[in-house]
């Protein structure tokens, strides 16, 4: 199936619309109000400037300015469905990674996809609370996500529920720290 941006936007808009409010109260994705109420973590000495929430959870962007065409923010429970939409559209997994937004007390999980035959790049994001960073694994849809998720777990401590092999990956086997968390002290 050859994807086009309109179809992708429609599919994701339908997906996002199904959850009118976050799946659990702390699981926020776009709400400005929710952000205001989250308490900043005490360790953040200088609060980072946080990018403003997207005008719409599903948007197309100029690839010459950003490096990708499509940017969607979904609830953490929806990442498998999001991956399935992209899988059906013929996308390939590019990378999975995290960003620690400590000032918001949230972790962002970023899924990158590229298309092997069409010049399209898609980004899917979700936010999870720092206290309970859990998101379902998409390794059943894209087996390549298996390693990326293990790496993200190593670096951020984000737990990928249902992952078949969540063992230490790049860090030493006795590592009990997550170095890319902003409150990590070596």
């Amino acid at each position, binding site marked *: 199936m050859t994807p086009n941006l309109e179809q992708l936007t429609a599919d994701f808009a339908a997906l996002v619309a199904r959850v009118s409010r976050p799946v659990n109260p702390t699981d926020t994705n776009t709400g400005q109000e929710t952000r205001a109420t989250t308490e900043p973590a005490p360790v953040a000495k200088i609060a*980072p*400037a*946080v*990018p*403003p929430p997207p005008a719409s959870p599903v948007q197309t962007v100029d*690839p*010459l*300015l*950003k*490096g*990708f065409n499509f940017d969607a923010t979904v609830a953490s429970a929806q990442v498998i469905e999001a991956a399935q939409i992209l899988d059906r559209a*013929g*996308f*390939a*997994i*590019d*990378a999975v*990674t995290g*960003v*620690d937004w400590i000032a918001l007390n949230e972790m962002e999980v*970023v899924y*990158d996809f*590229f*298309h*092997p*035959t069409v*010049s399209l*790049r898609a*980004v899917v994001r979700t936010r999870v609370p720092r206290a309970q960073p859990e998101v379902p694994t998409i390794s059943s849809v*894209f*087996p*390549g996500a*298996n*390693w990326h998720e293990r790496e993200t777990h190593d*670096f951020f401590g984000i737990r990928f529920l249902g992952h*078949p*092999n969540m*063992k*230490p*990956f*790049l*860090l*030493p*086997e*006795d590592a009990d720290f997550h*170095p*890319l968390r902003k409150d990590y002290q070596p």
Partner: protein
Amino acid sequence: MIAPKDLIPVGSSGQGSQETFVLNLGPQHPAAHGVLRVLLTMDGEWIQHAEPIIGYIHRMHEKMGENRSWAKFLPNTSRIDYLSAMHYTHAFVGAVERAAKIEVPVRAEYARVITSELNRISSHMVWWGALLLDLGGFTPILYAFDDREKILDLLEGLCGARLTYCYYRFGGLYNDVDDAFLKGTRDFVKHMQPRLKMYRDLVTDNIILRKRLEKIGPISAEMCRRYGATGPVIRGSGVAYDVRRAEPYSVYPKLDFKIPVYHECDSMARYLVRMDEMEQSLRIIEQALDLIPEGPFIGKVPRVLKLPVGDTCYAVEAARGRFMVRIVSDGKEIPYRVKLRAPSFSNLSLYEEASKGMILPDALAMMGSLDLVIPDIDR
């Protein structure tokens, strides 16, 4: 400490059936091309399950990115995949230039293309020599390294480094390409074209090589897609995916080159893709040498570089496939997050599935055809 139970790989029953045994390949093994360890569950000569274990040369470049300025992180990027440092620095400077909207002079873009393609050839030569070494042929690596030396000399004259080049700067280059380099590169292209023909006569058409690579290690296009494998691996599976075409960057759209594609999906297909790519790189270099204009080699760049808040991606076609940098800025002088998407990482991740049921020497030939650089995987 590794407990004995950890030696039982995932996927095996752990019962220790009388037919299988566990074989530990690496982390110090010549065929593993660096410190890669593969835990193999063998059924006699046949691989039942192979689990790559990585992280032995992990340096946490992504963390280093978060405690130094944008410019100071630049040399790090040339040490990820040390065989294609030009491409990796290109991706990072490209990401910063895209975010900060820095204009790059045309002369610098052409110089980047010339040096990147030279680097691609030198990287493929290391792969070629090492693969043949894996397969038991000692002579080819001597030819490859002899020719590669000429590229290293050229690039050393430009930026002082022979391997971990840090030649690109935000907005341009570290210094201008001089006449000696341009003439030397022209001479090299003339020298290299007949050498590639000789490589073909000497090695590619050799019946022993064909029997070791043909129909060995099939990787389908669908498998590449599900694992995110790119570069010569996906192009050997019949998909013409090349970042230089899919997400055009620099002056590649102005240059005429073919993307070599083979549909056999086997190790030989991946071999032939790389051999053809060297020819195409020479074609690109020739055109770029004709087209490179006079002019400045670096644009206007602010002394203190602060990027706007938000994230930006930039991908390049490195020698091993798609290398992407995702930078996240919070408006300060140092990055908030740098994600490095390494091609060898994804290319190796399919090894577990692809090597099932192969005999060990074939699996090692397939590993050679993936062209792994372990520091690239571990970062």
